[in-house]
């Protein structure tokens, strides 16, 4: 059963289109991450699902109900905002209880629900505090708690971790994912951080300039990027994307017009007599692995990720080969689509 269905959803501000038609079915309990560079329309898409932005064209269904013209409160959703959007003058308890109070639930039921959520999020000792007396991570949990107590059919997350420091972000990432698994609530999560996207998602939507470039599982996107954009966006360090002319040693199809060849840095191995020769410019030993910045004879830069114990010196020429056949991705140079 699908909880959220998007059918050719479009958004335009005046004459300027910002989302060019996104279609997708989200299954119950799925964790979907929308990822893309800033300005790609990912937040707008989320806000349209939330009901905070009008939908210019297309249909959004939540729990089998067309919601295009429904107010946010009637859509059975809960949202976690980037800067938490906690009511500063209310205690943690009141922040979490506010939505329930407006729904006119009985007092003891509200208390029970809020306390249950507080236990789940380890917020019990903080219920009487004001948001400003909490740390960033705790505020984030309160914002989560506010969403949880409503028991909606969909959680919406709008870059919820981007205001936290790096260490806390990793920790909260795991917490959110665990929590979502436990509650089994369908979630739509917007982020610009591809690591966050890869680690959390059941399925990813990669957006670029208002278009959903590819929808699929993280591994699927990593192994079979459909477009040059997805290929360059997913994976770190980024895939080497060069003209076919940069790799004269590789046997590439010649009947497909101009090609863009993509090889991930980690899919290059040092091999005697390998088809690719590159001069080492810079070596970055990271411990677990070594990132090598090299230059091809054509002058193009090439990134290589070698094991941590690799002995590479600057100025030498390496002979490299793709790890296997699947390591070489071919794209049509003009359309950017996979061949």
């Amino acid at each position: 059963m699908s909880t959220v269905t998007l059918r050719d959803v479009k958004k335009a501000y005046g004459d300027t289109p910002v989302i060019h038609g996104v279609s997708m079915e989200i299954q119950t309990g799925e964790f979907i991450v929308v990822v893309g560079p800033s300005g790609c329309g990912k937040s707008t898409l989320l806000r349209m699902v939330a009901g905070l932005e009008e939908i210019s064209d297309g249909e959004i269904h939540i729990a089998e109900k067309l919601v295009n013209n429904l107010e946010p409160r009637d859509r059975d959703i809960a949202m976690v905002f980037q800067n938490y959007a906690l009511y500063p003058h209310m205690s943690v308890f009141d922040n979490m209880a506010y939505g329930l109070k407006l729904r006119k639930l009985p007092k003891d039921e509200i208390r029970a629900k809020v306390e249950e959520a507080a236990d789940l999020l380890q917020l019990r000792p903080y219920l009487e505090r004001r948001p400003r007396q909490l740390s960033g991570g705790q505020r984030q949990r309160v914002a989560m708690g506010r969403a949880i107590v409503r028991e909606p059919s969909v959680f919406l997350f709008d870059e919820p971790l981007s205001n936290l420091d790096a260490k806390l972000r990793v920790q909260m990432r795991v917490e959110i994912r665990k929590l979502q698994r436990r509650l089994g609530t369908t979630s739509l999560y917007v982020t610009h951080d591809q690591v966050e996207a890869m680690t959390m998602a059941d399925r990813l939507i990669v957006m670029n300039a208002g278009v959903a470039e590819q929808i699929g599982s993280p591994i699927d996107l990593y192994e079979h990027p459909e477009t040059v954009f997805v290929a360059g966006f997913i994976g770190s360090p980024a895939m080497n994307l060069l003209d076919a002319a940069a790799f004269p040693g590789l046997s590439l199809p010649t009947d497909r017009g101009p090609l863009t060849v993509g090889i991930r840095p980690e899919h290059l191995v040092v091999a005697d007599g390998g088809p690719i020769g590159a001069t080492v410019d810079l070596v970055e030993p990271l411990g677990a692995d070594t990132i090598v910045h090299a230059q091809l004879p054509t002058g193009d830069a090439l990134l290589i990720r070698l094991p941590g114990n690799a002995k590479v010196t600057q100025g030498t020429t390496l002979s490299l080969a793709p790890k296997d056949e699947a390591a070489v991705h071919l794209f049509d140079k003009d359309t950017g689509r996979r061949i």
Partner: protein
Amino acid sequence: MVERRPYLTFLSHAFLVLGVAVVAFPIYVTVIAMTHGPQALLQVPIPLLPGDQLWNNLNEVLFVGRSTSGTPPTWLMMVNSLVMAIGITVGKIVISILSAFAIVYFRFPFRMLFFWMIFITLMLPVEVRILPTFEVVAGLNLLNSYTGLILPLIASATATFLFRQVFMTIPDELMEAARIDGASAMRFLVDVVVPMSRTNIAALFVILFIFGWNQYLWPLLVTTESDFYTVVMGIQRMLRVGESVPEWNIIMTTTFLAMIPPVVVVIAMQGLFVKGLIDAEK
């Protein structure tokens, strides 16, 4: 400043003491005058030490009207002033919050036009538009009524503008969060916007209460029955007694009583003021 020079310290303190004296002395004279009979205050020099007529004067002022000036007992004038001041204050605050809320949170046609129309009325205080306003109030049969005293003074561009600025500092996400939580616009106003602006409301309450309490010209125009006289205009009437001698002990006692409510409001609201300065919640 880390400068430590004895003569500077002395000089600045001397100025401060002088300033306090300039402000406090007239009030001291008022208090002293309250305790003397009418004759004592007509002599030169006027007494600077307390007399024994305080209770007499208070009793006279509070509960007996003055036939020479035609003013009712001061307790009635105080009540009138209080009703007017609180009416103006509460009315102004409510109206300004509502209009600022509309201007900040709703997109309606000619929004900016309405904002500027309100803004322009900043240049038109009561004194400027007093004749047309009187005409309207008289036409509505509101002379000699609390409504007539209060209503024309309620609209306030200053307060609307102030609340607009305050509301614009409240992040939009709060409004969106409230919408998702299921709050209607008015719920959001009452549950989020007003509590978040409460220190500004308190500050405005003080200013507007004093503004309302000190109204002189308008009450003078719209009240002809002594039952609706306010205390500030009452004092003025007591001074203009024509042939007879002004009763300074009575005037000073009334003046002192008229000073009490604004002082009480300032002291009561001071706590919220300071609190607003200390805990920045936004």
